[in-house]
């Protein structure tokens, strides 16, 4: 459990990596200060005693909505790939992930 309310440059770089976002140097500076002030604000929540409160992860009373496992009409391959930057033989094409 964190005790301080700021965020360090290393932490910011770590979460930017987790979020797969490349930040410029200017963005690294800007977000460091903006995120720190936002996180300090939400620290309001720590004052609340929630030891006896269950969390609400949603606001409907519905649980486990299921449907019959039946084939339904869906997009064609062409429709599904129409907005893709690169396709090859009906596949989405990506950069290599493993170097030879």
């Amino acid at each position, binding site marked *: 459990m964190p005790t301080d309310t700021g965020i360090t440059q290393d932490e910011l770089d770590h979460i930017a990596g987790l*979020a797969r976002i490349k930040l410029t140097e200017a*963005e690294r500076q800007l977000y460091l200060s903006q995120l720190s002030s936002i996180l300090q604000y939400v620290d309001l929540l720590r004052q609340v005693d929630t030891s006896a409160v269950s969390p609400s992860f949603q606001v409907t009373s519905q649980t486990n909505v299921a*449907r019959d496992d039946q084939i339904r009409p869906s997009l064609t391959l062409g429709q599904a790939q129409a907005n*893709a*930057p690169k396709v090859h033989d009906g596949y989405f094409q990506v*950069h290599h*992930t493993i170097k030879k």
Partner: protein
Amino acid sequence: MNLPLTTLAIPRIRELLVSGQVSATEIVREYLSRIQRLDPLLNAFITVTEDYAFRCAQQIDQKISDHQPVGLLAGSVMAVKDVYLTEGIQTTAGSKVLQGFIPPYSSTVYRRLLEQDAIVIGKTNTDCFAFGVSTENSGYFVTKNPWDLSLIPGGSSGGSAAAQAASLCTFALGTDTGGSIRQPASLCGITGIKPTYGRNSRYGITAMASSFDCPGTFAKNVSDASLITQIMAGVDSQDATSSTEPVPEYLSPARTVSLKGLRIGIPKEYFDAAIDPEVKAAVLAAATRLESEGASLISVSLPNTALGLAVYYVLVPSEISANMARYDGIRFGQSKKDAVDLLSHYQETRGEFMEPELKRRILIGTYALSAGYFDAYYLKASQVRTLIKDEFQNAFTQVDLILAPVSPTVAWPIGQKANDPLQMYLADVYTCCINVAGLPALALPGGFNSNNLPIGFQLIGNYFEEAKLFSVGHQFQQLTDYHLKVPSL
């Protein structure tokens, strides 16, 4: 016919159309000429669908000349927030990430409106992926407030609100995750409904925070808003969180709520030091107007209101960070061409095309959900969410509905808060708790300040009590004429 077609509400325009006094093509032409004249000033639209609108109008005119039945929205022209997927029509979500994206399918609620012969006239500007309160976070341009072009229209559904306020459409679609329908409605002097979470399907709308997002509508008045909601609402097999609760007939004599004896809660925390005195006076005057018709005003307390925004700015960015993971530039969306491998492709694509507010919220959410911080942020905020839900439930044992301001201030100058995200977030202080709890709320015009800028208020109901809100809101609009005032453009 004396009044311009663009001023007419849904039933009247349909009546003129069906009786042959006007054609759908003429209606579209009139709206388009207004858009051509005013949108260069307002920047409400990202895309104007001129050809598509004329084609739809011709089909409706054909149906009428063939004596075929037409839908409930025949003759009505709709502006659609650019987060709704519209098959064959560019959908950008107000972000460069989706520039040029042509969706292969449509959102459920939009499709239901098309089936009733609504004609789409264009896609409206929004803060990128609906992240904002001013439309200044749009990746394209800032929309102007029709009441004063130097001011923001509110947001995130600011393009739709401006289009509605400037009579560039019969009605306009928005989404409300923390106030994004009610706040721009309030700042633009129009009617807007955020239904109960789950009342309207979220399918085919770019996801922001999945346990908060609510599609809804702006309209010329409460009566139109109730009709549109009637058509949008209802369970959808494509959205597992859409509600199976039956949709009642929203505005019918049987559902009329008597103002006499109606218990209206006035939550003291919504009239705290943050509120502008003129806004406070106008909202309380609206309450007094209802009191003079026999309603009783009862002071209620929602003590965790001040925590709502903190809950919101933990949970919403957390859900955002998960939802935004799909924008990888591989299956759709803008894509960096020259990356050397897959990881740098992801990082460079997201780094280059995502707007600053998009990155900011993803980073906050990623932080809150990351190892070691989950309990302190996400879990804690989810527990306080329970407290906020419970205190509304407690209030509804004492009152029938709650009346409150929407925005602590009137519209502010473009640029004023643009460099301070936290100040910007505080604009949602009176709206976000309603989303945290998932309740329905109806924003209504309630007056003007000394600079002739609109002031709105909201009626908040218990779950699935939209009919009560529509009934009371409709009666308020019978007693007042704020909703009939239009900006001079």
